[in-house]
């Protein structure tokens, strides 16, 4: 795999010279973004199926075999729908908000390694870049809420802004402890730091277990997913920040939310679950049996498990009240992660540190 990529790169370099780099980057971007869009579409189907199964019903099963063409039908429906622009809205911002929500959600994928060296850009400050990009997503939501000139959208935007900013702190601290352990901000190096002869016991989720849990819950809150979906709480504020959106505008918010979910799942697997590494590597029998599986598959498998958890949460937990949400973020997660950063820093200085 790697040799193939290298030969492609070398021949391309020879053929096109300086033009090769932009072209190659574009190709890489398409190769990353197209599957993400596809998996976003099928994640919606998976969500409806899994929710259905957990509620003892089959979920969508009319469009195509087992409902497999449902995302296509939904997409076509949304594409063909009229985009209604409220007369009292700020039209420029109203139209640009969905783009602002989707662009950072996709941009963050640039540094996610799907396998050893399989990433669009091998950035040394990858972790910082991810933090920056995921924080930018909140602008799309605030602008959407403000530009709609609707009270529900406005309330939803305010809620979501406060929530994302609060949980970003806990998430940031969680990432700080990963950074401490890995001693690198390059996502590829973070995964390589988890390599070893003990398989999944070498991964960071073991010493960082509380941080891992906090990171994942904060990730659920960051993406405005149930049980933290107060920004689109249909019981109190209709649909929150995207109340006034229809057609493709709404679809872009939908895409952004699901792309963010997949991103959180990818980051959780990169930082805590060993990214593309084989969980059984170095084990007596299983290690030999599973070492042939390509890293990409392990990575996708880990992401799928994380995404299943997202949907499982949604099927299980009732929505938080807003003050409880803020209490959890500020009074539980931030102190917990702060304490664990100190614990880890001290632990790493002792001979009991094995990672």
């Amino acid at each position, binding site marked *: 795999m790697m040799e193939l990529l290298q030969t492609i790169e070398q021949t391309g370099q020879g053929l096109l010279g300086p033009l090769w780099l932009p072209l190659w980057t574009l190709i890489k971007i398409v190769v990353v973004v197209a599957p993400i869009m596809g998996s976003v579409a099928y994640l919606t189907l998976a969500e409806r199926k899994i929710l259905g199964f957990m509620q*003892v019903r089959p979920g969508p*099963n009319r469009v195509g075999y087992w409902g497999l063409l449902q995302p296509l039908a939904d997409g076509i429906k949304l594409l063909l729908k009229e985009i209604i622009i409220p007369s009292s809205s700020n039209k420029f911002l109203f139209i640009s908000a969905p783009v602002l929500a989707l662009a950072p959600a996709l941009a963050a994928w640039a540094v996610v390694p799907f396998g050893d060296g399989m990433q669009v850009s091998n950035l040394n400050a990858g972790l910082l870049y991810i933090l920056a990009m995921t924080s930018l997503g909140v602008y799309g939501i605030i602008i959407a809420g403000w530009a709609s000139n609707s009270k529900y959208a406005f309330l939803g935007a305010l809620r979501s802004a406060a929530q994302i900013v609060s949980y970003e702190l806990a998430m940031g601290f969680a990432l700080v402890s990963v950074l401490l352990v890995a001693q690198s901000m390059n996502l590829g190096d973070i995964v390589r730091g988890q390599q070893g002869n003990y398989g999944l016991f070498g991964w960071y989720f073991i010493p960082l277990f509380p941080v891992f849990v906090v990171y994942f819950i904060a990730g659920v809150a960051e993406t405005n997913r149930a049980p933290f979906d107060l920004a689109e709480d249909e019981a109190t504020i209709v649909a929150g920040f995207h109340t006034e959106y229809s057609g493709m505008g709404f679809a872009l918010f939908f895409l952004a939310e699901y792309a963010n979910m997949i991103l959180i799942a990818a980051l959780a697997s990169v930082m805590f679950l060993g990214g593309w590494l084989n969980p059984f590597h170095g084990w007596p029998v299983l290690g030999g049996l599973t070492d042939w599986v390509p890293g990409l598959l392990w990575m996708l498998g880990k992401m799928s498990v994380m995404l299943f958890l997202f949907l499982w949460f949604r099927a299980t*937990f009732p929505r938080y009240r807003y003050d409880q949400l803020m209490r959890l973020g500020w009074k539980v997660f931030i102190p917990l992660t702060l304490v664990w950063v100190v614990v880890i820093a001290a632990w790493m200085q002792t001979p009991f540190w094995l990672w």
Partner: protein
Amino acid sequence: MKKIVSFFKSFLLLELLKGMSVTGRYFFAPHITVQYPDEKTPQGFRFRGLHAQRRYENGEERCIGCKLCEAVCPALAIHIEVAEREDGTRRTTRYDIDLMKCIFCGFCEESCPVDAIVETRIYEYHGEKRGDLYYTKPMLLAVGDKYEEQIAKDRAADAKYR
């Protein structure tokens, strides 16, 4: 001590895991959905659906215009007008049921001394314009004629419980 226990309980997310185990169990449970147009739920012989008027085997209509059903109808959905027929018997000249008013309680069927007005198992019917669901005497008789076999079978099945 209690405080410490509850502290650890909430930090270990025990309650959340319990909840997730419930939904996780149901994930593998067999579905109970009935795929309606393809499958239908079983019906009992006392099912109360669309109304019908019955006839005797010789073709004579059963209804004698006693108006008991009109009197008992809680939704005031039945309207009856009665006159004497040429042969001197008492017959209805009008027997209307407004299905938009009807609540399908079955009282009309219950009150009828000659089993003339009955409710059938039919529930898949519709009206396309206003008034389509206002059933008049010929319409009710037509329903009865069409489904007499099933209606008689259901009455017979119910007879031993009366």
